[in-house]
């Protein structure tokens, strides 16, 4: 994946020089280990700052919403699926975009890696398959495969589903992955156990809404949580309000979530709120054979009716 960068720069410079796009959205090197920052280049010179490595987990589709100009955008598998969803939902037009596909082998999990070491991590050096983590008094080489974000480890669409350019050969898709082990475990709990489980899960939440804001699907001008007339949810730290926010947000992502992991990645207190969206993803797959963001020409299950609907009452 590290070798992509030359191609990324070459394509970006070409697109900008030929005036096919006004900006290219990519990443620049972060100021702390295992972080890169989304960054735009409006001139060929800006492209110099672009980087690509295993710290590009933020979903860039989030930066497309309602933009008017022509844009080149780097897109991993999940990003590309969110772009498809954006096109279906009229948040951006296909002909505004030059999609620069990035076949992906997964992003590393900053939190997991930090938790493996006692002291502060000073530097992380990456090569094709491994990362070397250095800090005060320790140095360790880890296989990237073992420290991927959980959503990347179980990803089955690593290659962009839609693209105009490609920065490298397509990668092999993972097959035989069990995507829903954690969801099944929760499904098996009794209602009261579920309630307790979720309460525990959400207890550290500070309601910063980073999960919502990092998500390309959450583009509403005023989110129901911010709405004050009427006020759907209380704004304090009441556990019922906190879980209402999470449950409702997940429902708003039903049939749209690509499990890109941007939400979980951005949570400052490390909550895995993806269990909610994954449950709905699983339901969509089982009930409607639907996976989000694969084809811009197929309407999603929640805005279509099919005679074969699995619910008895509606037939």
């Amino acid at each position, binding site marked *: 994946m590290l070798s992509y960068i030359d191609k990324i720069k070459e394509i970006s410079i070409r697109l900008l020089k030929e005036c096919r796009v006004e900006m290219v959205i990519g990443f620049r090197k972060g100021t702390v280990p295992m972080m890169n920052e989304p960054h735009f280049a409006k001139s060929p010179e800006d492209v110099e700052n672009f980087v690509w490595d295993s710290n590009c987990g933020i979903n860039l589709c989030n930066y497309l919403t309602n933009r008017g100009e022509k844009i080149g955008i780097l897109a991993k598998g999940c990003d590309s699926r969110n772009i498809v969803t954006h096109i279906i939902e009229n948040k951006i037009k296909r002909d505004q975009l030059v999609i620069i596909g990035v076949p992906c082998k997964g992003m590393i999990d900053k939190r997991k890696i930090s938790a493996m070491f006692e002291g502060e991590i000073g530097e992380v050096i990456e090569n094709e398959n491994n990362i070397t983590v250095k800090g005060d008094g320790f140095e360790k080489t880890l296989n990237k495969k073992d420290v991927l974000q959980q959503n990347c480890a179980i990803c089955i669409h690593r290659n962009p589903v839609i693209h105009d350019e490609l920065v490298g050969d397509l990668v092999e898709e993972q097959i035989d992955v069990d995507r829903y082990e954690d969801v099944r475990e929760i499904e098996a709990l009794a209602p009261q156990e579920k309630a307790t489980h979720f309460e525990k899960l959400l207890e550290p939440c500070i309601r910063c809404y980073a999960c919502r804001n990092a998500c390309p699907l959450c583009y509403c001008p005023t989110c129901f949580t911010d709405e004050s007339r009427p006020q759907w949810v*209380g704004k304090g730290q009441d556990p019922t309000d906190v879980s209402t926010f999470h449950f409702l947000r997940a429902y708003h992502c039903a049939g749209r979530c690509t499990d890109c992991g941007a939400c979980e990645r951005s949570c400052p207190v490390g909550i895995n709120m993806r269990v909610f969206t994954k449950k709905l993803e699983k339901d969509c797959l089982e009930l409607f054979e639907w996976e989000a963001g694969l084809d811009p020409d197929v309407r999603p299950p929640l805005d279509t009716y099919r005679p074969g609907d699995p619910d008895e009452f509606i037939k």
Partner: protein
Amino acid sequence: MKIVQINKENWTDGLKKLSEIYRLFGPVKEDDFHNFLELEQGQLPDLNCLNTRLSPKSIIYPQSEVMFEYTLDENQKDHHILKEVKKDYSPQAVIGIRPCDARAFALVRLNFDTPEHQDPYWLKAYEATTLVGLACESPCSSCFCTTAGCGPYHEEELDLLLIDSGDQYWAKIITDKGKAFLKAAGWTQTVDEKTALKEIKAKKQAAEDKICSTVNTDKLREIETNELYNAPFWEEVSFSCINCGTCTYVCPTCWCFDIQDENLGSSGCRMRNWDSCMYPLFTAHGSGHNPRDTKLHRVRQRFMHKLKYYVDKYDTGIQCVGCGRCVRLCPVNIDIRRVCELMNSHAAAKD
């Protein structure tokens, strides 16, 4: 007596005595990170923690705080009247607070305790609190306290400063509150102050030398506000921001709040909740108009407030103590050190 030695074997005993008088707070590790929590009987603060994920500001200024309550039940005498709620302002102590987080209270005080207005909730909670600091021996690489008016051994706002020295802590007494705290714990062993001070000085220097990150703020005051406000870099700075507000919620110096009424059946309360300039409702007018309507406006507000408006208004430096939390936790890696540099050098160029 200015320095007291606390042998670590007496630590647990002292805390036990203290817990009879104070509600004790300290860093506790839950899952992957530390936070300040109220210590249960017998629970020890984990002083090996680099710093907590969230700042301890919530001990004095909770994220959600009920101020008034009311009833609409007309059978009650005092229906339709907002009544102040009774709160627990009994003595409490924060053990192991870092010097930067303590200094943050001094910055926040300028807002909560002004000649015209005093915030009773903040002040009463502050008064009730003893701050027992812990000097930093190994600061994080993203800490830049020494150039943000602070430092690993900074004493401002602290009542006591603990310095770890192997088998014992040295407790430097800074205020009477601190003295009372030591007395309550039964920690009274005096030391040869000269030697101790000398060693503390050396340790302080060593800790300060370990700070590898700095900011320049010298030009911020001189430059015209509009020059900075209209600087060309705000689009680039704000581009990646997702307006999540994490930076302001984790920040020990951010103080904004919003007031809400919550009603349940025939009674309710008025509470205040933290707010953030990153949020769409921040400064939204009743008319629907919002002067800070776009992401660029919001991001600019945060940095201008911390690094310019505050600097101009109070003349005590920037509204930041360099704890580095926002640097470490911003999900898209917007780094205040970088933005500060842009602002300061923009100012320098206009000189």
